[in-house]
């Protein structure tokens, strides 16, 4: 890999900046089970970073560590140049890390628009009294945030279902609404947990396009977990490969593809 101090230029000519998030020697245990074992890697500004690995490799656990749902027993998490103390997930979200979930976590009782609006909650600063009286500032704020949300809804091409309760949507669209909600927070780092799981080829293509467009248009830094190797290799700038909680590869898709450990992990060579 090239010298990484000040970032690098990707094959398709995008400039990748400095380190946004750095994981240093992360170890996560559940009782006696070691889910993540001494893993370090970084995520750079503007890049699409993938975490791949066979089932049970600890990918989702890693994403949960980044988003604060799990607190690792050992290791340090550095975000935007500062060491992050143990935090609750909502505090992590307020720092500018948004995420989607493997098993879609949307607010079923709300419309698409309302779901996406929840992504803006942290940008709304007016207090309860101002809102209760619905005067000036609160109204201006609602309008302002609504504009951001409408732009994202346009961008992800879900205008037609704006007022539909999300419970009624098909799976693929739900995934897109979840992405919209995460984007509404204008995150500094966007985490996608298997954004294409359970989708058909067409939906996968759509989703890939959206991920690339989001990265391109908004310059959003994205870290994603995905099973579909073809998709991962096409999308990502750099890839971390995990197996049995350990990191077995890290680099560009080409480097990873030719890594013997990675090939073994995926083809199932016995571990002895």
């Amino acid at each position: 890999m090239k010298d990484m101090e000040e970032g690098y230029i990707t094959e398709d000519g995008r400039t990748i900046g400095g380190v946004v998030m750095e994981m240093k020697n992360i170890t996560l245990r559940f009782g006696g089970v070691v889910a993540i074992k001494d893993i370090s890697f970084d995520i750079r500004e503007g890049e699409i970073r993938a975490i791949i690995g066979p089932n049970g490799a600890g990918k989702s656990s890693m994403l949960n560590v980044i988003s604060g749902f799990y607190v690792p027993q050992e290791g340090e998490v550095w975000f935007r140049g500062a060491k992050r103390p143990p935090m609750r997930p909502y505090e992590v979200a307020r720092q500018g890390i948004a995420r989607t979930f493997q098993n879609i976590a949307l607010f079923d009782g709300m419309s698409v628009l309302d779901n996406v609006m929840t992504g803006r909650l942290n940008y709304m600063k007016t207090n309860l009294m101002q809102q209760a009286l619905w005067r000036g500032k609160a109204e201006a704020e609602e309008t302002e945030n609504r504009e951001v949300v409408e732009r994202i809804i346009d961008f992800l091409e879900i205008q037609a279902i704006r007022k539909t309760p999300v419970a009624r949507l098909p799976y693929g669209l739900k995934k897109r609404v979840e992405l919209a909600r995460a984007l509404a927070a204008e995150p500094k780092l966007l985490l996608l947990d298997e954004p294409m799981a359970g989708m058909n080829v067409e939906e996968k293509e759509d989703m890939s396009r959206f991920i690339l467009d989001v990265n391109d248009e908004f310059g959003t830094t994205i870290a994603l977990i995905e099973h579909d190797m073809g998709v991962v290799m096409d999308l990502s700038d750099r890839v971390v490969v995990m197996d049995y909680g350990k990191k077995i590869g890290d680099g560009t898709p080409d480097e990873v593809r030719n890594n013997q450990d990675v090939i073994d992990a995926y083809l199932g060579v016995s571990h002895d």
Partner: protein
Amino acid sequence: MPEQLVFAMEVTLNGLMAGVLYALVALGFVLIYKASGIFNYAQGVMALFAAMTLVGIMNGQVPFSHLINAIFGGHITHFGWTVPSFVAILLTVGVMVLLAWMVQQFVMRHLVGQEPIILFMATIGLAYFLEGVADLMWGSEIKTLDVGLPQGINLWIDERTFEIFDYGFFIDNLDLVATIIAALLVAGLVAFAQYTKQGRAMRAVADDHQAALSVGISLNFIWVLVWSVAGFVALVAGIMWGTKSGVQFSLSLIALKALPVLMLGGFTSIPGAIVGGLIIGVGEKLFEFLVGPLVGGATENWFAYVLALLFLVFRPQGLFGEKIIERV
């Protein structure tokens, strides 16, 4: 118009207004259940506690005076001032918010992710604890509550109906006021849930905890908020019932009347709580009027529960509740 029909109209009207009071209590249950999945058995005691606190503050009573006197051997019971009702209500709201914070901080926080039955049992404990605290703080004698709400027969309605039907309806002013206040309260709650940032966050938490966390909502804060709102609703219910029948410990039993209301309306629906309350209110009054004489009266005591039982058999989710779908 036949005399019987005119009577029935009066009974229906009175039933509707009794129903509003039931709905007020049921509303407190629905709010907490929706946002946190907790069936709050203590809702009725919260209404009692709120009403007692309000009376205590208005009369300038010294809280825990029995306890203080027993320890230090004094005879203080009152500060010697009275507080205007409006100020006292504001102070009581403050006490209910503090209570909400304490419930969350010392009880519910430690039970996150537990089975619903355990949360339910925690609220039973809370109910008895709160009843004890209310007793210790303000004493157990029956008190009258008068925050200046009009009471007694509404003469205007009496006269108008007399002109029309040749029979004057007896409608209590307090019931009228309760109806108006309940309507305002519900409108306020709906507006709060639909249009404010905190309301949106509250609905989000009710729907999915993980997703709520991922957009930066603090569950703790929202639960304190929900318990505060439920405490506020309890205060309103406590004022109405306390004005009607005096502030006494049996007030906490009105919670039991809310149960059939919830079974009818569904545990998760605010409109359900209102419609359920109205149906029960009208139903039990009309039933007493029509069937009561045939079976020797006192049907009001059991009508609501039998109706709830029928609903449990034929429509367990209630009129407006979320449909229960079992996937196999």
